[in-house]
């Protein structure tokens, strides 16, 4: 056990899996960086340094820099996965999904089913998402609902360093296509993370705290915000259960329903746009399966249905905050 950042936890998971299994390879833009000159070790190591140190240990054969051609290399990762390798491809920003979606949703997601169960596609696509980076409309989106919508994709949204390491190792060992979404604002968040490899199973939600009054379901970066809100509310005598689903597909429906049955109230927090997102999806699930337990209407805390603005003031107003979450909890308690 030692303190590690979200970035280090992901890096360690990659390195440990590459040591364990020679078929694990890493590819993406700037994953190494530099000029390919001999003696030049790790010039950049990913745009935010997540893959740093992999090339010196595993060599350029297993740590591939790609051109800025997501369409080509995400497709290559999928093809290689279907025929014997375990590629971990990095889509630098999830917004670039726009230029390689066919390879993911028409190809990788469909193989096992449409080839009559005879294909496995153990590919992991790591990608960075979320607002808060002053990166404007084309580099700040939170697109996991789009992946979640597609049958045949597993979708992982780690909320902390501990979660990231265990879930990434699980993702690499999984035999199906996994989209692994890293929140760009979490990379420097630090917590205790075991040094040895470990896995966290998919479809098993984590209760980060248990309370009596309100269930808050939150994803990714919003889990930390929900816990901050719960800390504030405790002083007012309101106690919350916070559920981190960890994976949006598969989704641990049972844990969410049980938690709502215990408290009778639900606030769902999602950094994605509100329409057809996880907040709406989880709200619908609870309305269908735990309606009788509800003592108040469900509330969703999401950004407004707009692109992400650049102006720092506007971007800050866009993102859900612990205060907005606490307000929603007070409203379902009123």
């Amino acid at each position, binding site marked *: 056990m030692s303190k590690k950042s979200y970035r280090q936890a992901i890096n360690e998971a990659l390195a440990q899996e590459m040591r364990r299994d020679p078929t694990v390879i890493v590819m993406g*833009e*700037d994953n*190494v*960086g*530099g*000029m*390919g*000159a001999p003696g*030049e070790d790790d*010039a*950049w190591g990913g*745009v935010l340094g997540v893959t740093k140190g992999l090339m010196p240990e595993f060599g350029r054969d297993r740590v591939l*820099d*790609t*051109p*800025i*051609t997501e*369409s*080509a290399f995400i497709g290559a990762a999928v093809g290689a996965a279907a025929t014997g390798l375990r590629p971990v491809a990095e889509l630098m920003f999830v*917004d*670039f999904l*726009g*230029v390689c979606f066919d390879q993911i949703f028409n190809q990788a997601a469909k193989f096992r089913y449409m080839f009559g169960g005879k294909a496995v596609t153990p590919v992991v696509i790591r990608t960075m998402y979320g607002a808060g980076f*002053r*990166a*404007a*409309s*084309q*580099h700040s989106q939170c697109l996991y609902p789009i992946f979640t919508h597609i049958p045949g994709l597993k979708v992982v949204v780690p909320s902390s360093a501990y979660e990231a390491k265990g879930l990434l190792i699980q993702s690499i060992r999984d035999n199906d296509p996994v989209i692994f979404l890293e929140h760009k604002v979490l990379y420097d968040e630090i917590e205790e993370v075991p040094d040895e490899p470990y896995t966290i199973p998919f479809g098993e939600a984590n209760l980060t705290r248990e309370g009596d009054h309100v269930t808050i379901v939150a994803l990714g970066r919003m889990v930390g915000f929900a816990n901050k809100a719960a800390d504030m509310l405790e002083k007012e005598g309101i106690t919350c259960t916070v559920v981190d689903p960890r994976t949006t597909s598969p989704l641990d429906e049972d844990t969410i329903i049980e938690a709502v049955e215990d408290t009778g109230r639900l606030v769902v927090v999602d950094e994605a746009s509100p329409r057809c997102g996880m907040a709406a999806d989880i709200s619908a699930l609870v309305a269908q399966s735990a309606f009788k337990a509800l003592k108040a209407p469900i509330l969703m805390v999401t950004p*407004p*249905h*707009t*692109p992400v*603005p*650049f*102006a*720092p*003031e*506007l971007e800050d*107003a*866009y993102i859900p905050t612990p205060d907005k979450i606490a307000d929603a909890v007070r409203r379902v308690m009123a």
Partner: protein
Amino acid sequence: MRANTLIQAYERMALIRAYENTVVSLAGQHRLPGTCTSIGQEASAVGVVSALSSDDLILTNHRSAGHLLARGADPARMLAEVMGKSGGYCGGKSGSLHISSKELGVVLTSTIVGGELSLVTGVALARTMLGQAGVVACFFGDGAACQGRFHESLNLAAVWKLPILYVCENNQWQAFVHRQETMLADGVVGHAAGHGIGGSRVDGMDVEAVREAAEHAISRIRETGAPHLLEVMTYRLRGHFEPDDQAYVDPAELARWRARDPLVLLRRRLIESGMADEADLDRIDVEVGVRLDRAVGVADASPYPERRELTSDVYA
């Protein structure tokens, strides 16, 4: 080129350099987020844009400041945009990454690499179908030229005979990866022949050469209506964005290109030819500096967008 044209080119290039240096220093003080600067590529921007006429349109990418300023953009409004102020070209909603300005004819800017290559064919098609004269210049990087849509765009433009000037600013870098790591060809101009369109390559550090090559290409496009690919060989003298210490860059390569800094080359050319003397050019540098200082003041004074702007222009 005539003396006054060349001196004007120097003014514009000095303005771009001063603007970018200002952005670098403001980013260093955390007064705005780091941007992708165009330092080293001023001759490309000014050479090509000055060869366009006012009804020609421009599409560009994340490294757009030079193109905008060459087209006459107000540095105060650009700085305001980069600071996220309401006085910016996009009301603070774009930041540096995709500044567009209809009034300047810089119609669509994409920070998704290659986005402009997809869009430009439609822009040229609209012009042609609406009976509007003029060519459409599309700036993109050597990285974008590795993409499939580079070829798709060239092919479609060739088949539809669209008046597009494709300008590949080959600055040798694609974020933190050197161009020679991503393509075996020594550049992109060779692809023009494959698509049956005209192609040319020019020394991007020499503004006169760029201007001439662009003029030549544009007159071919105007005559034939067909697209042309111009590859401008240049260099990204600073990092990909701010901050970036360029530790991954071979110092010898950087030094080689620094010695050919387009502003240094142009200065030398103006002085050696007797078109200007040192004092004239120093005066321009000072004037440009004053203009930038004033622009920072104007941008600083511009208010932040009102909170209701968050949901303005949202229709679905």
